[in-house]
């Protein structure tokens, strides 16, 4: 094939593929704003005659979606902040402090990363009941702070291992203690890595389903994915209500993606993950 014929052919194929990948999003968006009557007569492919927002509004009120957004935000934000703090402290000891048994610690954190949540769920369930934390958001915050900071510790330790020694020595000569060096030298310099970690932790925690499903039993404590997930198969969920619920689940995810995209490309570029 000549290169002049190739160009439109490749572009057309790729465009079709991307549209195929994006078509579920389009279907959801179109049918979330369609009235049930119109869906019944015209089916999923027609564009809605008018913008019908009652389906989304009704669903929002029915599941108290504002509350679910708030719950998800509080949990994801607390976990992201706490897990970054714990990761920094651990990695400061392991990557820069070079404590004894360093590699054993790293293997331990690597293993903790690999363990599936399925293996953790029952012990955590039992323990949380014993200490009265079952069905509280605090339980989820503690559990995910531990899980995420296992990954964060592993990653940051290798970033900190290459931290320029001269800067640490200069800080020591200036009389800075360990805490001051951490706070004034290490944290500011590795800020791009920390913001990437924060972003990952926030999005991962927001998207979590399995453990929140098990631990958050009361409706008023549930997160967005759990509240939407348990409704599937409910007889009140018709076609337009289901797409309205899907749209409400998709929008925050796309919003975070757009907000955080710049952090991610900047952070990775400045050598966060080596």
């Amino acid at each position, binding site marked *: 094939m000549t*290169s002049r014929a190739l160009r439109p052919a490749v572009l057309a194929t790729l465009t079709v593929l991307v549209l195929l*990948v994006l078509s579920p999003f389009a279907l959801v968006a179109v049918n979330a704003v369609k009235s049930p009557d119109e869906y019944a007569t015209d089916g999923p*492919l027609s564009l809605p005659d008018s913008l019908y927002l009652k389906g989304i509004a009704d669903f929002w009120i029915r599941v108290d979606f504002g509350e679910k957004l708030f719950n998800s935000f509080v949990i994801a934000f607390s976990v992201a902040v706490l897990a970054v703090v714990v990761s920094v402290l651990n990695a400061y000891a392991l990557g820069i402090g070079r404590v004894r048994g360093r590699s054993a610690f790293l293997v331990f954190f690597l293993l903790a990363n690999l363990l599936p949540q399925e*293996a953790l769920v029952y012990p955590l369930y039992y323990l949380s009941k014993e200490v009265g934390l079952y069905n509280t958001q605090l339980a989820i915050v503690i559990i995910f702070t531990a899980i995420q900071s296992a990954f964060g510790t592993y990653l940051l330790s290798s970033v900190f291992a290459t931290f320029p020694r001269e800067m640490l020595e200069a800080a020591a000569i200036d009389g800075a203690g360990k805490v001051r060096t951490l706070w004034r030298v290490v944290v500011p310099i590795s800020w791009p890595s920390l913001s990437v970690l924060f972003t990952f932790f926030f999005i991962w925690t927001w998207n979590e389903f399995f453990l929140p499903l098990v631990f958050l039993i009361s409706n008023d404590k549930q997160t967005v994915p759990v509240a939407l997930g348990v409704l599937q198969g409910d007889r009140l969920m018709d076609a337009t209500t*289901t797409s309205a619920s899907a749209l409400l689940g998709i929008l925050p995810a796309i919003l*975070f993606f757009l907000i955080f995209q710049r952090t991610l490309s900047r952070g990775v570029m400045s050598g966060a993950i080596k």
Partner: protein
Amino acid sequence: MAGGGYPEWIGLDNYTRLLEDDNFWASFRNIIFLIVAMAVVPTLIGLVLAAVLFDYVAKAIGPRTASALRSGFYLPQVLPVAVTGIVWGWILNPSFGALNAILTSAQLDGLAKNWLGDPAYALYSVMVVMIWFQVGYPVVMFMSGLQRVDPELYEAASIDGAGWWRRFTRIAVHQIKPEIYVVLVTTTIAALKIFGQIYVLTRGGPGNATLVPSYFAYQNFFEKAQVGYGSAIATVLALIIVVLSVVFLRIQARDERRDLA
């Protein structure tokens, strides 16, 4: 029911019971299919897409087009897994779903199926959903890996008369091996742990057609209150994941040493 009654020491009975349980074997057979859908197929598609986007689209058409297309492929990855289940549960619904409605309006009624409710199609339907969900991840990883490939290697190969396909298989794939390893390991582990989509789409059904270990363990823990049996399933799953990761890490380390030598 924390604790599920009084625990009693029964040795390895739960594990021997597993070996005779059809559901256990079905859940691991289904996982093989899901590894194909979540690790193998996305890696292969991702390699071709990344190479075409990086090597052809970015150069012949423009880097902005390439990165817009990349974002398009990646978009499903940003969704919470439960939400992907909701989207596809609706599209594939036999009575009010979009796919059957589209087929009917295209006069293809014969192709309309009970996609998730018929044991003959349920697992394949879930596989297609998982390919859709996963494919953006390898595309992004491989495109960033390809930036490391020295353009001079490519030019030298062109001068030697190597065509696009040969350059792709001999140079690009070889150079981004670290990314391929990472993608294969992480996606295989993700397949072994799959829970959210199964919970929302099929709950393991119909029968055990889409049953997976994590959902099987969850059922025993929280629906049947068979904590010991659920723990046995979870332990087997955890062991497989740990062993697999160690094997992958070993292969990777050996490969890196060989490349250095």
